[in-house]
């Protein structure tokens, strides 16, 4: 674990993929998504609700996720998000792109060719 918190700049460009990834396993509501991000990052990164809502509106506009209202809870109805088939496809593509970029960046920042 690093000594300093992860810069949000490093993660900013991947929020859509992170949200799609979390929705690829099950439908989730906003706070649940934020909690999962904190959990998966060992509290090193916090996805704030306003950022999540902006991303969700964008993804829904692109047809990659859809939303529906769940049952009443203490604070009112919860809005759930579900991934669409287009979203699943985009997620797989983004994931593959990320893996390729990660390998490349690893090589570039270490200044060494990948060892076979």
């Amino acid at each position, binding site marked *: 674990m690093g000594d300093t918190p992860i810069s949000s700049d490093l993660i900013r460009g991947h929020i859509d993929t992170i949200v799609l990834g979390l929705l690829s396993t099950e439908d989730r509501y906003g*706070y649940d998504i934020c909690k999962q991000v904190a959990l998966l990052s060992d509290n090193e990164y916090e996805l704030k*609700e*306003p950022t999540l809502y*902006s991303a969700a509106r964008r993804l829904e506009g692109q047809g990659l996720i859809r939303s529906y209202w769940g049952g009443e809870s203490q604070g009112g109805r*919860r809005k759930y998000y579900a991934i669409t088939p287009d979203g699943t496809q985009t997620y797989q593509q983004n994931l593959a792109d990320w893996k390729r970029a990660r390998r490349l960046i690893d090589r570039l920042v270490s200044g060494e060719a990948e060892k076979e």
Partner: protein
Amino acid sequence: MEAIRYYVQGAFQGVKMTPEVLEQQEELIADLTAKVDDLVAQGKSKDEALGVAIASLGDLSTLVSEFESADETPEAVPTATVYATRLDLHVILISIGIGAAVMIASTILGAWARLIHPGAGFSLLAVLAVGIWWVSEAYSAYRESPDAVETRDLVYKARFRKALLVWMGVAFGSALINVVAQTDFWCWPIWVAGGTWALTVKVEERLSRRAEFQAPSSPASED
């Protein structure tokens, strides 16, 4: 929780209360309430939990600014960033496909009703040539730059109305020439071609909303 409701409604002050805004507020209230409940379950007092939950939201102004202000402001033209050449090629292929189907059906119907005379063949050939040229131009543009990105105004009603007026004008004009010149009934392929052009507006309206034609938007801004 009334305090959460007050906080959220206060944050959205000055925003036009559309159903979309009300839904966003409802979502935020439900999520904040769940967060406060979690913090209380972890041993915090209700007031403390409320303070922590609200503070953890950070700045709401970016989210709020995504909604229309209640002030009287001129309506902005909606736009979309699309893969232009890919979209145009699909629009033209689909429209010409539908136009061709109508053309074939009209030909069969016209032949059966004995309304089509040899003169129609010339205009049909001319329309066919224009169609081929149209597709080849769109395909060349696509081959040249398949990922060309363009921001387009999503204003289709006015464009469709204009296209329909042009279509009606062309149809009326060609029919008039037919009648005045007492020539063969050659104008029907022109009618169909004009209709196909108007159809492209409707096809583009539908396709431009689809994810595969939308170019990635600018990265999300955190905090």
